[in-house]
């Protein structure tokens, strides 16, 4: 397989993948830090580099609505967003999933208002975690590119037929230049294949269809159950697509990416770019003889609870890093779900939560080292009374905006 090595920002890599996917319809609306993706895509359209029909909508609500209309018409349709844009789409996200439309959307993670903030955290996509979309989180530019291409296959698989969000950290990845390997256009096309609609489409005049009916207590639950089953079926499909992608590129993708977890006493679980920082600290600690490890879930929806339980159960103390708070008074979303997954572990290890990096607050090596130091203590006693902690907050400077 001929791959080219080039330097691109995360946004450029996402835009390039979109160009190579060459969707039939793209709806576009700008928002920092996603803007560059739609600008680049506009230039592909303007220069005849894609076959795409481009809709420059007046809002993200309309972007997702138009993409739903296009996907229900039997074409490959995409859009991209961040933060407030994703929040603005909210009701239509659920409708896209309920209609089981294989829409793929890059989301450049950014903090939700308020206060308004343009930098990266996961509050936007975590807010949409129960919208029925598959969610893939990307650590770096390479993974963002690779995830977007695989997302097409996952979404469109006949067993799945669900929309997919491909998440990437705003600025930290979207605006950082990194080397990555890219595929040739033909190879991307061959990998994703022709778009084949698996449900009746609006434009098939021979068999008219009513999309989006009213379904009350007599049918609603069956429709929702079918949707839930599609999400369950997505797990093996994501793995299978990952294996095929590995055969093509040599790069390996699974539900989870464990690092030095096999014999780990203490472990951090973290999504996206911070996983890289954490691995550096793990290597340092290993040099010092500390058995530290890290788990990076690549897939958050469907939630790989069995796989997570299997790799984490033998660990003596675990810290879950959440780049989003759920304001429930009980930590972030990743924490709660992983803690629940470990309930059935033979020996339940202590699991603590660190809320970190909100609004783009840097999470540096020292922050991560501090977490491992805490974990060391927790592992020693097997117990802590402080389940939810905040990383890198100036406790003395807490203010009301």
């Amino acid at each position: 397989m001929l791959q080219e090595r080039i330097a691109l920002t995360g946004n450029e890599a996402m835009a390039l993948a979109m160009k190579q996917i060459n969707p039939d319809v793209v709806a576009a609306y700008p928002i920092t830090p996603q803007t560059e993706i739609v600008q680049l895509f506009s230039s592909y359209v303007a220069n005849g580099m894609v076959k795409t029909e481009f809709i420059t909508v007046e809002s993200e609500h309309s972007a997702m609505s138009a993409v739903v209309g296009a996907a229900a018409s039997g074409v490959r349709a995409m859009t991209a967003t961040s933060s407030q844009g994703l929040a603005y789409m909210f009701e239509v996200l659920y409708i896209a999933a309920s209609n089981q439309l294989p829409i793929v959307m890059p989301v450049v993670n950014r903090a939700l208002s308020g206060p308004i903030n343009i930098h990266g955290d996961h509050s936007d996509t975590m807010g949409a975690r129960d919208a029925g979309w598959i969610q893939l989180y990307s650590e770096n530019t390479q993974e963002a590119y690779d995830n977007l291409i695989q997302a097409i296959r996952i979404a469109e698989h006949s067993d799945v037929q669900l929309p997919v969000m491909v998440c990437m950290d705003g600025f930290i990845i979207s605006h950082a230049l990194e080397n990555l390997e890219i595929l040739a256009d033909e190879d991307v096309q061959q990998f994703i294949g022709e778009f084949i609609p698996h449900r009746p489409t609006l434009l098939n005049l021979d068999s008219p269809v009513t999309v989006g009916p009213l379904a009350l207590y007599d049918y609603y639950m069956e429709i929702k159950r079918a949707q839930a089953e599609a999400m369950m079926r997505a797990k093996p499909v994501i793995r299978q697509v990952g294996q095929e992608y590995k055969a093509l590129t040599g790069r390996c993708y699974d539900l989870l990416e464990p690092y030095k977890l096999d014999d780990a006493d203490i472990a951090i679980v973290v999504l996206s770019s911070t996983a890289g920082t954490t691995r550096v600290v793990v290597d340092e600690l290993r040099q010092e003889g500390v058995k530290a490890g890290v788990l990076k879930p690549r897939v958050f929806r469907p939630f790989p609870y069995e796989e997570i339980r299997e790799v984490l159960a033998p660990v003596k103390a675990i810290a879950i890093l959440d780049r989003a708070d759920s304001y429930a008074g009980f930590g972030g979303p990743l924490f709660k779900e992983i803690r629940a997954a470990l309930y059935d572990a033979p020996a339940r290890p202590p699991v603590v939560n660190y809320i970190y990096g909100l609004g783009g607050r840097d999470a540096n090596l020292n922050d991560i080292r501090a977490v491992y130091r805490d974990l060391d203590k927790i592992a020693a006693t097997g117990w802590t009374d402080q389940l939810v902690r905040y990383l890198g907050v100036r406790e003395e400077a807490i203010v009301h905006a």
Partner: protein
Amino acid sequence: MPNLKELMQHESFFSPGHRMCAGCVAPLVVRQVALAVGDTPVVVANATGCLEVASTIFPYTAWRCSFIHNAFANAAATLSGVETAYRALKKQGKINKEIKFIAFGGDGGTYDIGLQSLSGAMERGHNMLYICYDNGAYMNTGIQRSSATPLFADTTTSPAGQVSSGKSQWRKDLTAIMAAHNIPYAAQVAPSHFMDLMTKVQKALSVDGPSFINAMAHCPRGWRYDTREGVELTRLSVETCYWPLYEVDHGKWKLSYKPKEKKPIETWIRKQGRFRHLFTDKGQTEIKWLQQRVDEEWSKLLERCKEVG
């Protein structure tokens, strides 16, 4: 010329198997539109509202054509996606049939929550016809006021009371707002004048680009009138010049119908329970105001259409 009853015998894209209230005018509007469309293939989008909930109760559907309901605010944006997908497939040679795209929305889904989505779709120039069936309130949720509700109408969120005479604002002039988008065709219709309605639908579908039609669609439940009045009440809204019939064809304003004798507004509102509170001594002032405003709007329209009053 066939009469309405004869026309209604034809099979169209909207079947009578829906569950709207008896005497509801909205399905009549849809059937007249369907008859105007004839055998031309169409895809319909519908905003949330009475028409949608009563015509698509799973596993049944009243729509013989392809149909999509997405949400309340986004019928226009949704259909713009469908129309764009159609253009994509056409360009790729995967589809060659001519298909028309029609959106239906209630006044709430069009004048209010869906206005941005509609404005965007019209501005972008999609080849689609948007039809608002204006029954002057959010009927599906129980008769709340919208920006289309007439001045002084009693609704559940603009109730008449000790210190209130009902809704205190004049209705938004949506047809003019749509015309101001410089789309090729915008028009106002009423199902009482069905030949006019059907001609306008055909015109709207024949233009290159977006078109908009605003249709008066009485709701017996919300307006509280005797269902036997039926389209007669619709006719009165036209005869009193509350709901004038006109079109804006490529920027040219044209009156479609001028009543021989303009009826007083009282003849229309007297038949409706939502104006009952005006028929007291105190209400006479309000009725006068109402008449004055109707007169003003009517002369404005005559001027725009270069007609003499």
